């Protein structure tokens, strides 16, 4: 199968700090791909490189085998690279309707002039209803986004990114700060995205059990370098990984 997202020897340095060092890996459609590593390993930098907030110093990024290395971030998003943030980023002073429509706008760009004269995007209500089943809560359209709890906002951000019909979603620590049932719902949503819609998912997560249970493939980075990749068993038995990451955790537990 053709990878939906492929990084080829991507490099990025900030001053003297190497944030990405010849990083290569690829994400297949419908695959939940874990991206793990200790704090400061360069995970968020990779996210920013893929979504185009940073530009690569060297190397290439391919989306469906199309080179997008030089493409500005908004065009990448329009191609189908969705993203969520560690702390959800919404329109603080708007209601939920506008915030979710922001997601559908992405898949229905029809120019500002036609938008002004009342052209509407495709019918997204049924889609939304379906997704909210998995998200496990409901809300009032006209409520302020700031009025709903943090966990629900995180879920809502994933829903929003799915409303845009992306081909791949970059998910940054979706479980951080959520309670167990909310984490379950996050995973339900991501599984639906991957398995029913064939969306590739690149998942940064610190909760090891989640990553080990849900990801088919895992890539481990440290100091910007890929130190291991493969399925969960391979990764967790890799000596480098144990030393760099898991090992330290086990020591800490002892």
């Amino acid at each position, binding site marked *: 199968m053709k990878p939906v997202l492929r990084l080829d020897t991507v490099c990025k340095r900030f001053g003297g700090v190497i944030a990405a060092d010849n990083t290569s890996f690829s994400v297949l459609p419908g695959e939940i791909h874990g991206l793990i590593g200790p704090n400061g390993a360069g995970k968020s930098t990779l996210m*920013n490189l893929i979504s185009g907030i940073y530009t690569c110093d060297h190397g290439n990024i391919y989306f469906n085998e199309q080179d997008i290395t030089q493409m500005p971030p908004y065009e990448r998003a329009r191609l189908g690279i969705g993203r969520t943030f560690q702390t959800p980023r919404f329109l603080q002073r708007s209601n939920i309707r506008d915030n979710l429509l922001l997601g559908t706008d992405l898949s229905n760009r029809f120019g500002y002039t036609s938008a002004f004269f009342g052209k509407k995007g495709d019918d997204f209500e049924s889609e939304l209803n379906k997704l909210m089943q998995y998200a496990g809560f409901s809300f009032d359209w006209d409520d302020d986004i700031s009025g709903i709890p943090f966990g629900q906002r995180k879920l809502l951000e994933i829903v929003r990114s799915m409303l845009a019909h992306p081909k791949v979603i970059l998910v940054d620590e979706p479980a951080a700060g959520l309670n167990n049932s909310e984490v379950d719902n996050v995973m339900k949503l991501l599984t639906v995205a991957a398995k029913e819609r064939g969306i590739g998912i690149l998942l940064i997560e610190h909760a090891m059990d989640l990553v080990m249970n849900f990801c088919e493939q895992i890539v481990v980075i440290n100091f910007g370098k890929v130190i291991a990749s493969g399925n969960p068993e391979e990764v967790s038995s890799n000596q480098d990984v144990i030393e760099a990451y898991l090992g330290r955790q086990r020591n800490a537990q002892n």
Partner: protein
Amino acid sequence: MLNNLIGLTVNGLAMGVVYALIAMGLILLVRAVGVMNFAQGDLFMLGAYLSFTFIVNIKLPYWLFVPASLISFAIVGLIFMAVTYWPLREASYPQAVIIATMGAGYVIKELAYKIWGPVALSMPALVINPETGTTKVLEIFGIKLQWQYVMIIAVCAVLIVLVFMLFEKLYAGRMMQATAQDKYAAELIGIPSVVTIAATYMLVTMVVSIGGYMVAPVFFISATLSSLQLRAFAGVVIGGFGNLKGAIIGSLIVGLIEAYATLQWSSYKDAVVFIVLIIVLIFRPQGLFGEKIADKA
């Protein structure tokens, strides 16, 4: 021609150092409390008016004038802080403080109008020619310079150096920096943020007001004095936002551009300054002396 050029340079430098005083005040406030002060020009104007009262109305002798005016400037600074900053320090909306300074600008302008009247006042020069009653002319090597400009350059340059040393080299400046960056942490290591912020406000007002006093004999004292702050803004941006050295050099550049512009485009000297500002912004937004600010995602 050469004489003319030297004369223009002196004029330009004189205005430049005045702008530099205003600009330094702006930067210090931005650093200490993160506020762009749009009433800076009005404080500047108020300084000129207050000095006028002390010198012309009350006729204070110089040895009394200096402390009296400095104290009154400091008090103005304290009041300004108490009104525009203190109640708004927790404001959730960053523009609120800026708009409040605009409001304060209105109040100061109107106060000055009510107290000193609508007619522009003329302030006696520091060094007066006894025959004409106007500023004395200094003649070196056949070049005629107005004494007032020379005095402006001398006094303001000393002030600039003092303020620069205080903030960049001495402990007091580091205290203010620390307060600006993290109030809570600064208080933890024993720097009372209230005191440093109040001190900054007082010092800034004093410096700016002295600028107003120095420049008053060159212009008439009226509400239009406050518009000089726009040139100081230009200086700040050209030099590099948030950087004292840059602000000083940028302001000097603005003063010189303005002076030289009168050679060629006398009526467009304002435009020339701000066209330079826009060009600098477009090609070097961090300013001539600023460091490039990395985009933060």
